[in-house]
């Protein structure tokens, strides 16, 4: 419920009474910085103001009558999005979502799906709500409830993320099941090849990864188009030397079709993400200017993470 107080302003006269309207919002905080104040309005102005807020004509007449008789009145109005809500949306939804979608677009551009085989997920390409703090999901829900366009695009985005995960999973599966890929990996991991790298034991490459995960790990790097790895990774020596050759596995029969389809799904997601990103940025600009709320304020330590 939103409460509006109307009171006679003492600067007016008996013949020309003037009124102040205090829109205290939902919490009746008249002294709060979020309360809107309209000053020195005539009776006609008050009527117009209430009409703009969709107050029924009969109620307006009653309020004006009460004002004339007592000098003050109180009206209940329909709730609306105000600066307090906008601030919360900016801090918890818009500001975390925008850089996350930008990162998502960057990764999609590089065809790095950030796929992980265990657990099965795209680590940095997620449904919108999973870019937010858990407790902020309710704010996202509110934004989406009030903006049908944004709701539709978010649904499309999240569906496209799911499709990408299915597609990359299938690509990874096709790769580890491909005889040529398995043979290639086995030949590159043969003891004599490793000896040339100064490696005596496969654990020097894969550490504590079990033998059953080794092929999956190499395939994961291949489907993610992983670049050169920094030398502190134990897999770096092997991967950096054979990377180009392993990446060519994406052209193997039964794999290339999956790969082409994944690229297509990734491009679709990129186009959806771009639309969603620009829609969110436009809405943020519009809300900021309409409610005079800056994009970012306050304690940086509280906003990081």
């Amino acid at each position: 419920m939103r409460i509006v107080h109307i009171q006679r302003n003492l600067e007016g006269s008996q013949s020309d009474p003037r009124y102040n309207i205090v829109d205290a919002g939902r919490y009746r905080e008249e002294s709060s910085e979020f309360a809107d104040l309209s000053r020195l309005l005539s009776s006609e102005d008050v009527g117009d103001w209430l009409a703009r807020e969709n107050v029924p004509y009969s109620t307006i007449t009653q309020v004006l009558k009460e004002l004339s008789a007592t000098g003050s009145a109180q009206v209940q109005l329909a709730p609306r999005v105000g600066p307090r809500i906008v601030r919360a949306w900016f801090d918890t939804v818009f500001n975390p979502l925008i850089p996350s979608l930008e990162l998502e677009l960057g990764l999609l551009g590089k065809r790095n799906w950030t796929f992980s085989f265990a657990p099965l997920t795209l680590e940095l390409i997620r449904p919108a709500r999973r870019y937010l703090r858990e407790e902020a999901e309710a704010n996202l829900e509110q934004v989406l409830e009030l903006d049908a366009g944004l709701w539709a695009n978010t649904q499309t985005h999240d569906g496209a993320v799911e499709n990408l995960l299915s597609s990359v999973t299938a690509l990874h599966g096709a790769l580890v099941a491909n005889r040529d890929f398995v043979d290639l990996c086995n030949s590159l991991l043969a003891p004599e090849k490793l000896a040339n790298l100064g490696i005596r034991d496969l654990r020097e490459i894969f550490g504590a990864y079990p033998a059953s995960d080794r092929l999956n790990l190499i395939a994961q790097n291949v489907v993610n188009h992983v670049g050169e790895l920094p030398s502190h990774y134990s897999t770096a020596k092997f991967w950096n030397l054979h990377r180009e050759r392993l990446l060519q596995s994406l052209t193997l029969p039964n794999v290339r079709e999956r790969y082409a389809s994944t690229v297509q799904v990734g491009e679709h997601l990129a186009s959806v993400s771009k639309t969603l990103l620009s829609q969110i940025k436009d809405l943020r600009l519009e809300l900021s200017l309409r409610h005079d709320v800056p994009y970012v304020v306050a304690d940086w330590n509280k906003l990081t993470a």
Partner: protein
Amino acid sequence: MKMFQKAVIDSGPLFSALVLNYDLRTIRYGQLPRFTHVLDDPLTNTFAQRRFLELLGSIREKLTTSHVVAELSGLERSRLHLYGDGLLDFWRTSIDLLTQWDVDERLIRLLDIAGNETFQRCIPRIGLIDTALIHLALRNECVLITQDERTLAPEALTRGVDCRLVKQLVPLVG
């Protein structure tokens, strides 16, 4: 660069390694590093960061205690302020590195240490976690790497452990 066959790693250097590894991945994805500011000197320097990771990566047998592993999850919350999927992502990246490094987490039981008179005196003074690290380093006759020059390092040196501070191992300038 110094290379150790075997070393016991304290929570400070281990946590620093996980943070740097996470930040390096962030940089690879074209973003700015987020957490380098939580690290102590010399690890605020890019050159030192890479040398440090290479040094730890080159140790063949990396040992630590379960107490240290438990401490890591407290550090990640108090110093990085990560949440939700971001926190999950940090742990996934970290576990991948710990798996590749084959970090050997050893359980040092209080009752095992308490039976030894020397360690009995250590526990009230420097705590169970640090005492267990000294115990592990002595038992394995290997170096102990730490950033704690106030409590752990002096006590370890007194007990005859070859204890190295990160700032001694990684020069600030190459």
